[in-house]
C-alpha cells in the first residue's frame, strides 16, 4: 500500500460519493412531495454529498455487527498483517482486524460525540432560554459564570478536569458536554433575546402563561433554525475534541474501538510509509466535512444570503 494508491483510493471514494449524491438528488426531487421538492432541488451538490455521507455513517454505526467481519476486540491474527482477505485492511498493533474496528468505531466515536452534543445542547439551551426569559440576576449569574469558563481554552480546561475526575467514557462525556454547553448558552441566549422582546411574547405573558409555555410555545419554535445549524457545528467541534483527546490517550479507553486512539496505536506504520493508520483519521475528516457542508447549506437557507 503506497501513498500514491492511497490518495487514488481516496479520490475515487470522493468521486463515487459525489456521483451517488447527484443520483440521490435527482431521485429525491422526483419522489418528494411538491412542497419539499423545491427545497431539495435548490440544495447544492455539496449538501447532498454531506447528507449521503452522514446517512452511510449512521447505517454503519447502527448495523456495525452486520457489516464487520470480525468482532471489535478479538485478536484474529498476528500484528500488522498486510492488506488481503480475510483481513481486508490488515490488522492492527495487537492483531485485531482493522476493518472491523473501523466499522465499530463509527458506532463508538460518533455515538459518544452525538450523546455529548445532545447533553451540551440540553444544558446550554435550557440555561440560555431561562436566562433570556427570566432576565435579571439569573441572566447575570449564568452569563458571568459562562464568561469565566470560556476564558480558559477548552482543550486545556478539559485536560485539567479529566485529571481530577479520571479518564473514562462517562467523565469524558460529562466534561466535554459541560464545557461545550457554554458555547450553546451564548448562542441560544443571544437568539432568544431577540424573540423575548416581541409583542406576541408580551401578549402571552399578559394572558398569564407560565414560564414553560413561554419557552416551549412562544420562543423555542422561533429559534429552532439557528439552533439546529449550531447543533451541526457543535457536533463537529465535540467530535474533533473527543477524537483529539482519544488520540492523546485521554479519551475513549481501550479496548473500545475508536478512531482517535486507532491512529495513535498504529502510528508506527506511518513511519514505514504505510498509510493504513490514516484511515480512521480520514473517517473523522470525511464526517466533519460532510456535516459542515450540510450546516453551510442550512445557514445559507435560513439567513437568506445570496452572496
Amino acid at each position, binding site marked *: 500500500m503506497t*501513498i500514491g494508491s492511497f490518495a487514488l483510493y481516496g479520490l475515487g471514494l470522493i468521486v463515487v460519493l459525489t456521483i451517488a449524491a447527484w443520483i440521490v438528488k435527482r431521485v429525491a426531487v422526483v419522489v418528494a412531495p411538491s412542497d419539499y421538492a423545491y427545497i431539495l432541488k435548490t440544495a447544492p451538490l455539496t449538501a447532498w454529498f454531506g447528507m449521503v455521507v452522514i446517512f452511510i455513517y449512521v447505517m454503519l454505526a447502527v448495523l456495525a455487527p452486520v457489516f464487520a467481519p470480525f468482532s471489535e476486540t478479538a485478536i484474529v491474527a498476528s500484528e500488522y498483517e498486510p492488506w488481503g482477505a480475510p483481513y481486508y485492511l490488515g490488522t492492527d498493533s495487537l492483531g485485531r482486524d482493522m476493518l472491523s474496528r473501523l466499522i465499530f468505531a463509527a458506532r463508538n466515536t460518533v455515538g459518544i460525540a452525538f450523546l455529548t452534543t445532545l447533553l451540551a445542547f440540553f444544558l446550554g439551551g435550557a440555561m440560555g432560554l431561562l436566562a433570556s426569559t427570566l432576565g435579571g440576576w439569573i441572566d447575570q449569574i449564568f452569563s458571568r459564570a459562562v*464568561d*469565566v469558563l470560556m*476564558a*480558559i*481554552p*477548552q*482543550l*486545556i*480546561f478539559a*485536560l*485539567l*478536569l*479529566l*485529571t*481530577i*475526575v*479520571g*479518564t473514562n467514557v462517562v467523565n469524558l462525556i460529562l466534561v466535554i458536554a459541560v464545557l461545550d454547553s457554554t458555547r450553546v448558552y451564548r448562542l441560544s441566549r443571544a437568539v432568544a433575546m431577540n424573540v423575548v422582546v416581541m409583542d406576541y411574547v408580551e401578549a402571552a405573558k399578559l394572558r398569564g402563561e407560565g414560564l414553560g409555555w413561554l419557552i416551549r410555545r412562544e420562543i423555542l419554535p422561533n429559534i429552532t433554525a439557528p439552533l439546529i445549524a449550531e447543533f451541526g457545528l457543535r457536533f*463537529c467541534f465535540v467530535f*474533533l475534541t473527543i*477524537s*483529539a483527546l482519544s*488520540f*492523546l*490517550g*485521554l479519551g475513549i479507553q481501550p479496548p473500545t474501538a475508536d478512531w*482517535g486512539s486507532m*491512529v*495513535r496505536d498504529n*502510528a508506527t506504520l*506511518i*513511519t*514505514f*510509509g504505510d*498509510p493504513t*493508520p*490514516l484511515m480512521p*483519521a*480520514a473517517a*473523522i*475528516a470525511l464526517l*466533519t*466535512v460532510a456535516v*459542515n457542508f450540510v450546516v*453551510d447549506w442550512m445557514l445559507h437557507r435560513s439567513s437568506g444570503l445570496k*452572496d
Partner: protein
Amino acid sequence: MQLILKMILQRLGLGLFTLFVVSVIIFSAVELLPGDLAQEILGQSATPETVAAFRHELGLDKPAIVRYMEWLGGAATGDFGKSLANGREIAELIGTRLANTLLLAAYAAVIAIPLAVGLGLLAALYRNTWFDRSINIFTLSSISFPEFFVAYILILWLSVHAGVFPSIANINESTPLWDRLIRMFLPALTLTLVVTAHMMRMTRAAIINLLAAPYIEMARLKGLPPRVVILKHALPNALAPIINVIALNMAYLITGVVVVEVVFVYPGLGQLLVDSVSKRDITVVQACCLIFAVVYILFNLIADVLSIATNPRLLHKK
C-alpha cells in the same frame, strides 16, 4: 484620546480580574478532587502517620486561602512547587519547554499570518471566481480535519515519501538555530494549515463586508482599479477585525500545539501536560494549565485592546 485610554484601561482591569478568577478555578481544581490528595497518591495501604507527613510536606494542612496565596505568589516568581509523580521542581521541568512551545507557536505565526492575510485579500479581490471557490473548499476542509490527520499526512508525504524534513522534531539546547528550524518545519506547517483557514476566511469576510459601503462604490465609480480600492480604501477599515482575528488565532495556536507536539514528539509544554494528565500529576497539570490560560487570556486582551486602538472613530472625540 481620553476616551480610548479609558476603554483600554477598562479592558486591562477586566483582563486582570479574569486572570484572578481563572487562577482561583485552576487552584480549586485540587480541592474538588474526591477524597484526600495525599491518600489518593499514597494509596489505601498508607499509614495515618505517612499520610499526615505527606500532607504536611505538600502544605495540605494549611487552610485553602493561605495555600492559594502561597501558590499564586510562587507561580508569579516562577516557583510552581514539586511534581507529585517524581518530586522534581516543576519550574525545572517547564523552563526550556515553555520556550520551545513559544518558539514553535511563533514559527507557525510567522508563516501563517502573511499567508492568511494575503490569501484573504486575493480571495476578496477575485470573489466568486474559481480561485475563490477552490480556496474556500480548501479552507473549509482544513478546518474540518483533525490536527493529527494533517500532521500525519505531512509526515507521510514530506518526511517518509520525499524525505525532505524529519518526522520527529527532537531538539535540545545544543541544536543550532538552522537545524532547529528545519526540524520544526513540519509541526509549524501543521499549525499553519490549521489556523490559516480561519484567519483567511475572516479577512475575506471583513473586506467583502466593506465592499458594499458607499465610499467604496464612490472609489469604484471614480474609476480606480479594484486592487487600489481594496488595498487603499477597504483594507485600512478592515484592519480592526483582521487584527482581532489574528490575535484570537494566536491564542488558539498556543493551545493547538498540544496535539501537534505529541505527534512530532516535540519537547514542549503541551507534551508535558498530556504526560502529566495521564499520570494524574495534578501539580504539574495545574502549572501548565495556568501558563496556557495566562497566555490565552493575554492574547485575547491584546485582541481587545488592538481592536479599540485601531478604531479611528474612538481617536477623535465628537
